[in-house]
């Protein structure tokens, strides 16, 4: 397993917000983590990124990347992993870019910080932009001059340029139009199939999860109540909570004015 989480507990004082027995992602696999607001999905992301302590949480348990234990690494050691080997994209791509810098300068700076020379960074950024099907010229623009879907793809390009092995995608399409969402989902599929990337896809929307993910874990109150191959979980949910989430999804042809 490329990323293996076991016995992960995230707590604020006495309050345990994540109590995750086991979650693993293989190479070239997309695993969905689905649940309502407040179920602990995003805190799981922060814990994997080694950032949960920055919001005042305590993290116990084990997070292994290709067999290497990540919990217990110093912030300095973690910085070599975060962004570099485990990249993350979030719901609002606009927040990932400073509005006063050109998109390219944010990308270049991140690549330089991870040890690339100026020339390497420029070449890697251009190549990654083409991989996400964006014209490299967009790097010269400011974030406000790009659409939400384009910015999200630039954020993914940054992960590609750094050759990240694991991508944590926390509601990456929730703020996007449905047509743009379809493009981003297709891009994530391509990354899995062509780059062998492992993706943890976090969403409250089971329809999106069903379209994209190989396996899915359903989270409620910090715990995983069910996990398995996506087709099985969405067609024959074992947990009543999963069934409830499925029932909440809007469907086409449900009947006007029920």
């Amino acid at each position: 397993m490329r990323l293996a989480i076991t016995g992960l507990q995230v707590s604020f004082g006495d309050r345990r917000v994540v109590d995750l027995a086991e979650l693993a992602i293989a190479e070239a696999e997309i695993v969905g983590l689905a649940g309502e607001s407040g179920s602990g999905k995003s805190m799981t992301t922060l814990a994997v990124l080694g950032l949960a302590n920055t919001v005042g949480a305590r993290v116990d348990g084990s997070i292994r990347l290709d067999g290497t234990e990540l919990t217990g690494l110093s912030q300095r050691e973690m910085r070599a992993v975060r962004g570099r080997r485990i990249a993350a994209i979030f719901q609002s791509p606009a927040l990932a870019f400073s509005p006063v810098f050109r998109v390219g300068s944010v990308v270049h700076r991140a690549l330089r910080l991870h040890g690339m020379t100026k020339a390497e960074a420029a070449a890697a950024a251009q190549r990654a932009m083409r991989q996400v099907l964006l014209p490299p010229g967009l790097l010269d623009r400011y974030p406000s001059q790009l659409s939400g879907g384009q910015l999200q793809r630039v954020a993914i390009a940054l992960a590609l340029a750094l050759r990240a092995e694991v991508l944590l995608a926390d509601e990456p399409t929730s703020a996007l139009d449905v047509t743009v969402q379809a493009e981003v989902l297709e891009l994530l599929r391509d990354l899995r199939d062509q780059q062998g990337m492992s993706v943890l896809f976090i969403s409250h929307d089971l329809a999106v999860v069903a379209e994209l993910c190989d396996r899915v874990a359903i989270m409620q109150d910090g715990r995983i109540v069910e996990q398995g191959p996506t087709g099985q979980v969405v067609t024959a949910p074992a947990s009543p909570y999963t069934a409830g989430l499925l029932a909440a999804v809007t469907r086409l042809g449900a009947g006007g004015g029920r």
Partner: protein
Amino acid sequence: MTPLPERGGRAPTPLLEITDLAVRFGPVRAVDGVSLRLAGGPFGLGLVGESGSGKTTIGRAVVRLVPVAGGQIRFEGKDVGALRGPALAGYRRAAQIVFQDPDNSLDPRIRVGASVAEPLIAHRVVARRLAAARARELLAEVGLGPEFAGRYPHQLSGGQRQRVAIARALSVQPRLLVLDEPTSALDVNAQARILALIARLRADRNLAYLLITHNLGIVSELCEQTAVLYLGRVVESGATSELLSTPAHPYTRALRSAVPAIDIAARSARVVLPGEPPDATSPPPGCVFHPRCPIAVDRCATEVPALRRVRPARLVACHRAEEVLAGAMEAAGQPLSSSREAGASGLAAEGSRSPGPAPADSGDGPHADRLR
């Protein structure tokens, strides 16, 4: 509770009639020649489209939040733009809007009960001393207990805040609601509860609403009629269930195919649109959709397609609508030249295409002729 909309014995006057509406923001033609009709409640008209399609601007124009550059909006036969004084105040009661983000529509310093009571007092719906009690009744109607009246917005979840915003809109007994992405800021469970609330209120209060959303699943559940917008224009409109099961415009088809579905059988052939919607300051000549259209022909680049009737109660602005309806898009399903490299195929079929779910009876029939 709410009086039935006046229809008289003659041909029914629509509750809301928008004719050739234009809204401009400087050089941007946000809305460009849109005509819509909305019957009296209970009735839902969905406005769908991507960001920048003009759907929100139409909703705001209806409640007079943005100036109108051309065309007319008539409510119960009266020109909304010409209303002044008491007639305008009456219209402001009759037509209410609920915004996407309840965080911005509720004052964080005012308790929820007082927020709901405020319009009751401002519009003199009830005597001031009765306003607090009436506010609690309204909160109960949207499923919030009396204890909520004393709370501040930040003490509520997003779904509960949206309920408060709906209660506030309902307080003045509107006949028309503009619901602008009422659930887009919520997670799916909270969304499902708000949609159920809207369905209940529409029956209880005989409400008509304009429901603005990018989510086709929502219009499928709550709207008899739907209009699809692209770059400020209506490209297709008709009975929702029929429009979604047999889209006649290639853009409707693309939107429809982009909706994620849990049931693999319900997934349709994916139509990938290359590029982004064009700049509304300089729309392309001919059909505004032609630069992204998978089936555009030469004529589309020069001749603007008129919105025309292709089936009873179905209007489409596409030169090739008949071919789309006859299944021409499948026939034309060769890979198209586009900027896509990996997995490039303008009309890649993913999985088998099913004809889509059967149209629900409640969706058309008696309502089918309500939208021109």
